């Protein structure tokens, strides 16, 4: 499913979600993120950030309201179609444990292509393996020695770089990063972030970066506070 290039990256209206048997977690009247924009979404833990990402990624279905991602309304899609849309258009980086421990570095990076032919097709030159190596090098993991190691032997910072390369592979329209730097120290954090941002810029991906740590906000085009856009008060 190819996304419409002229539409905003994310467009949410009257979004309401409650976990089963729980009070409302998300009540967002409006959220717009433009294409290519790099947005910092801040919010304390427990404020519903992960739930919002689940809604935007089409993993969770809102009780009411609509989510349009890259111009596609997720609501009418079947579960499998949403899975496919997510695989084609969104790259995720999580806080920790991003990698499959039984695969090597390159195999982890190439994993999305198994589920998304669209991402494989977007790779320039058509050679996934050399593109994966290029991304790893661009994000600071160039040495062959590192690529040979089991991912469980990499440091947390190195694992996050592998996860970033995986999210970027095949140029998905949106990169969603959920506290990817919280396990890193300050210098490593800035270094990781600037590499991630420059790679996003060069392939034209929208970056939605979620964190409770506001000290990084100045690096972004725009900073949103979840407590401002979400009408649910914790």
């Amino acid at each position, binding site marked *: 499913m190819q996304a419409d290039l002229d539409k905003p990256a994310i467009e949410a209206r009257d979004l309401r979600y409650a976990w089963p048997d729980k009070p409302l977690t998300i009540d967002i009247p409006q959220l717009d993120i433009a294409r290519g924009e790099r947005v910092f979404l801040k919010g304390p833990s427990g404020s519903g950030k992960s739930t919002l990402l*689940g809604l935007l990624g089409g993993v969770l279905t809102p009780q009411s309201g609509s989510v349009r991602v890259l111009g596609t309304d997720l609501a009418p899609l079947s579960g499998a179609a949403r899975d*496919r849309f997510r695989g084609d258009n969104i790259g995720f980086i*999580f806080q920790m444990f991003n990698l*499959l421990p039984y695969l090597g570095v390159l195999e982890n990076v190439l994993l999305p292509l*198994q589920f998304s032919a669209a991402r494989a097709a977007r790779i320039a030159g058509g050679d996934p393996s050399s593109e994966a190596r290029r991304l790893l090098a661009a994000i600071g993991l160039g040495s062959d020695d590192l690529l040979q190691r089991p991912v469980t032997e990499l440091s947390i910072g190195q694992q996050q770089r592998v996860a970033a390369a995986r999210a970027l592979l095949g140029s998905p329209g949106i990169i969603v990063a959920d506290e990817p730097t919280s396990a890193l120290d300050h210098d490593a954090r800035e270094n990781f972030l600037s590499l991630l941002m420059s790679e996003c810029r060069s392939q034209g991906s929208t970056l939605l970066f979620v964190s409770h740590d506001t000290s990084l906000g100045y690096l972004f085009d725009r900073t949103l506070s979840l407590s401002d856009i979400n009408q649910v008060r914790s």
Partner: protein
Amino acid sequence: MNTLSLAWRSLRNRRSTALLTISAIAISVALLLGVEKMRTAAREGFANTVSGVDLIVGARSGQLNLLLYSVFRVGDATANVSWDSYQKIARHPDVAWTIPISLGDSHRGFRVMGTNDSYFEHYRYAGDRRMNFTVGEPFDDLYDAVIGADVARQLGYQLGDPIVIAHGVGNVSFAKHDDKPFRIAGILAKTGTPIDRTVHVSLEAITAIHLDWQSGARALPGAQVSADEARGQDLTPESITAFMVGMESKVMTFTMQRAINDYRQEALMAIIPGVALSQLWNLVGIADTALMIVAAFVVLAGLLGMLTAILTSLNERRREMAILRSLGARPKHIFTLLITEAGILASAGVAAGVALTYGLLLAAQPLLERRFGIFLQPGGLTGYDALILSAIIVAALLMGAYPAWRAYRHTLSDGLTIRV
């Protein structure tokens, strides 16, 4: 990197659990296959107890009864066959040869059978195998005995040893024919049939030891006949217990059977060994069906072990599933992944089980043949074996659907974040 190799890598990451699961399946499969092989071998061994014999003739009773006492040396005849009738049938032009059988005595729990050289010449078992002598030869002297392999082994007998035959078939008999001891003239090689547990003597010897017996008791002193005196007497028996018949032409078997069953002078019965054997197998075959059912349940237990192992692993693999889901894995991918995993475990288990079975069979073969006379031909897998093995793998795949469904439910409720 396709789903198969993904499942394979994931399993390798959990190899100790996976190996244990595979071992459990392998052992259960080996048990099932082993039981099946033994069952086939036992059935064949059973059917192979006697071959080459076209008819067995005895006094009219049940066909199983006649088969049991004439071939398996179990039970007793209700009546005898007169020597005249035997001679009449033996001389019939369609009859090629006969083997007379005279039963009723024993030696330390082993049945004694009176017969003649025709027995060693014509009796066949296991297709076309004939009796072989480990040492010695068929009886030459009146008081010669030829013993089966089990008799020799259990009682430690060797060529030339003297033995005394007891009257009757009880394990402990007080009435012994100790005035006419026998000498072991030959020991037969193991056959895996009741021959191994039989003491053979000549028909004349049976007559000789009973010369001075009247209605089950020995004559008073004075009326007794010594061993040497017996040699001088006419030792043609008045009757025998049963006899086996080989026909000149197989097509005459049914005609002869009908003629014997309709014989007017004496109430006789002729049975076809193959027919009677399969009827008997239907009776005793129940036991090995029970064994087969037990083995099937062991396989079920092995598969349930696999199911448990996969289900247990799911909880610690919620993150793995969430990662795959975030990368766009659809329900069918998660499903395929877990069912493939079950398929790999089951196939590896089945393959290891087959290897284990053949390994054990090859190792145990000489022992089984020597000790029990069971000729196990490992051969290839039969179509039936293949069917059983495929059924096991299919069952495993069906079982794999349950954890697969559970795993997908997890990924739905977990969303993309797992609080581990």
